[in-house]
């Protein structure tokens, strides 16, 4: 079980993580969603014990996490991370030697599936392939908590689809906590069960995908009909075109009156409204 209690991380005057409290009870694929600079990587680094927090407490299975007490059961490699300029096969071999329970067969299988040339040195690989190699090394670890930071950065659409399949395969073979940070919500939503949205160092949403599916909806109709409905609803964004208004709601569903339609909000729209949350009606 992972727990953040009032965790803050400051870089000089900048607050990257602001009094975050978060609880991840057990196994599952969690999607950490946020804009660039929202605090996703910092949150992961804190959890892995790569950096020290400025305040609050992080625990993994009840054990406090710090740079001097990196949790053994958490594995995290930052996206775009620097690696030794060795052959891909040697990097996998070294990682296998350094990590207990490293699944070398899984690593080889993934490398083959993604046509990763194991004889190429790290610097000779394309950007996408570098990310792929890092992702393979992270995912092949047997740790109970795996943190994948932008694992599909530089991937084409086919690679992203294959990656999602493999992520699911990895989880089915070895159920554990898989936290994936990404911008590409619609693709990851095919495999993830839980969503954590972070913005400016604050957790905005922490909910199951099904829950969001149920609670995130759009009311569309004449502005004169939609506006009165918004009282008491958690309106996260509005779009007005002429006298037609689309109000984006996150909360309990209502029965709309005649002239107003209720539609399911896509995850992408939900995310944009949550972090953007700006109306265009003024």
């Amino acid at each position, binding site marked *: 079980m992972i727990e953040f209690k009032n965790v803050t991380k400051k870089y000089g005057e900048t607050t990257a993580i602001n009094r975050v409290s978060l609880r991840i009870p057990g196994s599952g694929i969690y999607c950490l969603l946020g804009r660039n600079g929202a605090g996703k990587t910092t949150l992961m680094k804190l959890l892995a014990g790569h*950096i020290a927090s400025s305040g609050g407490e992080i625990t993994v299975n009840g054990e406090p996490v710090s*740079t*001097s007490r990196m949790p*053994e059961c958490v594995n995290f*490699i930052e996206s775009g*991370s620097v690696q*030794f300029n*060795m052959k891909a096969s040697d990097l996998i071999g*070294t990682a296998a*030697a350094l990590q207990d329970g490293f699944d070398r067969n899984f690593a080889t299988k993934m490398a083959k599936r993604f046509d990763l040339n194991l004889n190429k040195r790290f610097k000779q690989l394309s950007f996408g392939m570098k990310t792929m190699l890092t992702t393979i090394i992270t995912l092949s670890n047997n740790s109970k908590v795996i943190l994948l930071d932008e694992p599909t950065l530089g991937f084409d659409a086919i690679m992203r689809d294959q990656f999602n399949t493999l992520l699911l395969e990895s989880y089915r073979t070895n159920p554990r906590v898989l936290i994936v940070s990404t911008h590409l919500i619609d693709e990851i939503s095919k495999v993830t069960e839980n969503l954590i949205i972070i913005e400016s160092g604050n957790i905005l949403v922490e909910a199951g995908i099904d829950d969001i599916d149920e609670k995130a909806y759009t009311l569309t109709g004449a502005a004169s009909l939609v506006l009165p409905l918004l009282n008491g609803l958690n309106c996260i964004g509005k779009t007005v075109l002429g006298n037609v208004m689309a109000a984006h709601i996150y909360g309990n569903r209502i029965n709309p009156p005649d002239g107003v339609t209720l539609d399911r909000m896509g995850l992408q729209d939900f995310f944009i409204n949550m972090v953007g949350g700006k109306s265009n009606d003024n």
Partner: protein
Amino acid sequence: MTTKSMVVAKTHIRNIKLAYVITACWFLATILQDIVFLALHWLNVFSGNEDNMTVGLGNVLYLIIILGAVFIPSMNFRKMMNLGGKRADFFWGSAMGHVIMAAAVSLAGMILYYTYESFVISVYYKAGNLNVLFWFGWINNGAAIAFVQQFAFLLLLAVFVHTLTSVQDKWYGWAADIAIVAIIAVFTPIAPLRAALVWFFRMIIFHPNAFAQIVSCLVLSAAIYALNKPILARRTI
């Protein structure tokens, strides 16, 4: 120390290529210089004089120790962590790497001293060469003891540079730099303090008792390297 430490040590030794390249350039330049001078000498074009000296080829290899001790904590730490390494493995593996490299350089230095350097000196460099084996008096204790003396000194050098490099991104790293410069600057002109400085260098370099010099270097190496434990614990990735 575990197999993982050995993997870390091996990875370090494989991944300080820049140190090897720079050292190889100096090494080859020294050989080329010797070849040119020997050729000129044999051709009676230029005979030089009795004061000619050269840097011992074995001592050129010291550069690997110094640069390696800079690159391991500054460049290899993060990469090792990115492969899923643990801090404890890095701590022990780096120590093992320094021990292996110090032993290898000391051995190569001994071989070069008794082969290449002996030949070159006898022919051209009448005043000898700038080799610490000779100038520190270690060679007078015989090849085997000189090897250990050189090894212990190189290990101390590596550990010192490694530790100093590890803290350069912290305020106390800069404080350590200033303290070292201040100690040398303040201790040198004041007689009693200078005596302390002389005593220190005598212990780690010039002590007539080889055993005392070796033990001093090894104990000091262990003490300095132990500082890396808390440094490493605070280090961010």
